């Protein structure tokens, strides 16, 4: 019997029975998963293989210390400071570190810039690669089969689903994160924001705009949160 098979017998990795609503798996969590993870964690703690306090720290980092607010601050700084923007495009990890964001999965970040005739879209068709220090952990849709399969073959269709109809004369560049490089889209600064402060601008920048499935818009003109 394989290791996975043995574990399945113990209920730690057991497959779900038929009839469960799979499409909602991430929302209506089977209580069985709670029990399986508790059982696995308590075994690993009992054997001295993990430190529960370290686990708490990892979770706290991902829930509270990294996330799209970091990326939004990077984007806003690039909009107001041309010298910073130049550094960001030339050496993103160093420019991002200037703002204090240095945790893992960001050391090979590249920034790709949108313009009137260029639109960039980020995907990881093979798994879930994503620039953690500036965007945090990816949302479920980014890791899902519909997005991963279609972003490369029908990016304009994906963008339409997100409410963005791109004119034919705009070039779409898709970036499939197949190696250790991580991508961040530098969205276009919207018109009508000339008098805004860096902080006000950062509040306009959304996660979706930094993945490339949305534009940055002024609150009055609507758009995805």
């Amino acid at each position, binding site marked *: 019997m394989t290791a996975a098979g043995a574990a399945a017998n113990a209920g730690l990795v057991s497959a779900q029975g038929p009839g469960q609503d799979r499409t909602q798996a991430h929302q209506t969590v089977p209580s069985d998963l709670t029990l399986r993870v508790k059982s696995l964690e308590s*075994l*690993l703690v009992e054997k*001295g293989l993990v*430190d529960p306090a370290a686990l708490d720290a990892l979770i706290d980092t991902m829930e509270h210390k990294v996330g799209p607010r970091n990326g939004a601050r990077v984007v806003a700084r690039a909009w107001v400071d041309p010298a910073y923007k130049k550094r960001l495009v030339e050496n993103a990890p160093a420019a991002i570190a200037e703002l204090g964001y240095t945790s893992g999965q960001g050391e090979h970040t590249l920034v790709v810039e949108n313009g009137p005739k260029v639109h960039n879209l980020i995907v990881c068709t*093979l798994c879930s690669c994503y620039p953690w220090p500036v965007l945090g*952990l990816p949302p*479920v849709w980014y890791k899902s089969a*519909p997005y991963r399969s279609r972003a*490369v073959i029908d990016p304009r269709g994906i963008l339409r689903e997100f409410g963005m109809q791109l004119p034919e004369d705009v070039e779409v560049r898709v970036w499939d994160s197949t190696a250790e490089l991580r991508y961040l889209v530098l969205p276009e600064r919207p018109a009508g924001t000339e008098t805004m402060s860096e902080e006000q601008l950062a509040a306009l920048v959304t996660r979706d705009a930094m993945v490339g499935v949305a534009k940055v818009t002024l609150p009055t003109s609507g758009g995805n949160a």
Partner: protein
Amino acid sequence: MNGAHDMGGQQDMGPVEYEKDEPVFHAPWEGRIYALRRAMRAWGKWNLDADRHEIELLPPADYLRMSYYERWVDRLAAQVVKYGLVSREEIESGKAAPGSTKSNPALTLATSARWLSRGIPSSQDPKVRPRFKVRQRVRARNINPTGHTRLPRYVRGKAGVIVRDHGVYLFPDSNAHSQGEKRQHVYSVRFAATELWGEVASPRDSVHLDLWDDYLERA
């Protein structure tokens, strides 16, 4: 491996399901398994490439059926047995074997910050010579490795242009299987959308992939 995970270009997967104001974790167990799997990698028994490959080893039907973190639960239980950190009997009983020695965690609260900021190995090692140059036309090789690979099916056999040399990285196809780091250059390669998908694609559009030397040949 031509597995279910290699999704680029697959069709009929349905619409993207967007969740407004999505939380980082949807339930406490998701956070716990996320942290457990990261903490267990600190033991150094398996590297990042092997970690990714472990997910790919799920049978395709399971891969598609499971939620993202449900895959992690399944795989971590398999990994700790496979790499000898936990016995099959212990997984079955959920208890440490009587008289078994107790370890000291590889990752502790004190070391977690350092571990989190630890980089992925790469370099600009001048001793590792690039086989291709920026602006050179290349073709992704038509290979079908049965182990781990980061060369998606949808670009194999297709021609593109190197737009950037990213420097030297470990080769995942060998590193995932402890068959050596095989350090080599990784390039950003631009493929015209029409080269990948034919005339339905916009002639303006392109897809960029980051590909290792061993994935490429002259075009």
